[in-house]
């Protein structure tokens, strides 16, 4: 198996459904200056195959975004080679930013003051979020 050394300080985003690692990277870390490793199709007892992301010297991660991409994701925070915290993603009940309203006539597309805010309406196979401004439903597919 491909060997990648552990990190001293940073986070490990684990149990990402295989194929979604790149999505996580693009949404959250495409602009980072820190070292990032994206592992794809790693063998996993639990999932069969999974993706993993390791980022050095970063401790903040938007758990809501991880939650809408894949609620099975776990996040390990590592300081001085030690696991100091383990977080579990979950489907967010509400979201600020992170999603674009699907309604082209919505005020959030044209006014900088209107930060898109959403409320979870349904998580039945697909995630349905209601925009707090125009009340249209935006679907985020799992």
């Amino acid at each position, binding site marked *: 198996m491909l060997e990648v050394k552990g990190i001293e300080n940073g986070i490990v985003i684990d149990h990402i459904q295989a194929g979604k690692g790149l999505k996580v990277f693009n949404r959250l870390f495409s602009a980072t200056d820190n070292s990032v490793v994206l592992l794809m199709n790693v063998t996993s007892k639990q999932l069969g195959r999974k993706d993993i992301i390791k980022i050095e010297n970063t401790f903040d991660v938007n758990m809501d975004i991880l939650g809408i991409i894949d609620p099975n994701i776990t996040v390990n925070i590592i300081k001085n080679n030690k696991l100091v915290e383990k977080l579990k993603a979950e489907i967010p009940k509400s979201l600020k930013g992170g999603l674009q309203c699907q*309604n082209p*006539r*919505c*005020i*959030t*597309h*044209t*006014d*900088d*003051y*209107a930060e898109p805010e959403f409320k979870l309406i349904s998580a039945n196979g697909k995630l349905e979020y209601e*925009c*707090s*401004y*125009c*009340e*249209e*439903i935006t679907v985020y597919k799992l």
Partner: protein
Amino acid sequence: MRHLIEPEDLTIDEINRLVEVGLDMYNNPKVYNKICDGKILASLFFEPSTRTKFSFDSAMMRLGGNVIGFADASTSSTSKGESLADTIKVMGAYADIIVMRHPKEGAPKLASQYSRLPIINGGDGGHQHPTQTLTDLITIKRFKETVNGHNVAFCGDLKYGRTVHSLIRTLARFGNTKFILISPDELKLPSALKRQLINQYGVELVEVTSMEDVIDDIDILYMTRIQKERFFNEEDYLKLKNSYKLTREKLKNAKPDMIVMHPLPRVNEIGYDVDDDKRAVYFEQAEMGVYVRMALISMMLEVGPYARS
């Protein structure tokens, strides 16, 4: 301080009171013609809507208040790129209450987050237009005595017509349990709304494609415009538009005390020969809109019948 962004911002009791106060203003206008003395309504129309603007302006003037504002975004500072939040903050010093119409959906909600004045939504895109719903309710009350207990039918474009969606939802909140929906298959009521009406309010919906089948059973016939843009080809449009047109001929089978409503402007969905029929109340409906807006302005400014003792 409160805002009116959508009909759900008002309780059923509050709506009932607005309708009562509005009817009293209609019957006894002199009692109320000074209650907004010294008050200013800012009427901010980022998108033109002559009818709604004049209705609000007239309402404020009939209460003895004054009006400032613009009728179209090209004459306002937004055309120079000013954000909505800034426009609204500045208005705080110029007026006592704001009515706004905006092409973007959710704009009044955004404005309310930055306003120190009460905001009334005068229509935001295809989203909400709560004072149209109040206008419809006061009209029903004036002509049918109660808001509840009538066979209400909606005819025409039930898919895109926000006026219809809003009124149906509000009537369902009032406890109306049955609606007749007359439309072509292409323009049926959206299924999400149907689900809400059935699940949340236990409403029975009767869907038909022909007015003739149901006209003798209707107490309130709410007509809407079928827009050409909704159709792929001219032929379909022309064919459909006439089958959803109300004529004197079709009225023959209707109940003698049925009323015909329409949010106006109409194009040709109601024949001009219907206007003289006493069942046609759409011009009175537009008139009642002024009075229910007067009641609303009084409520939000806490003056006249709404003054705090």
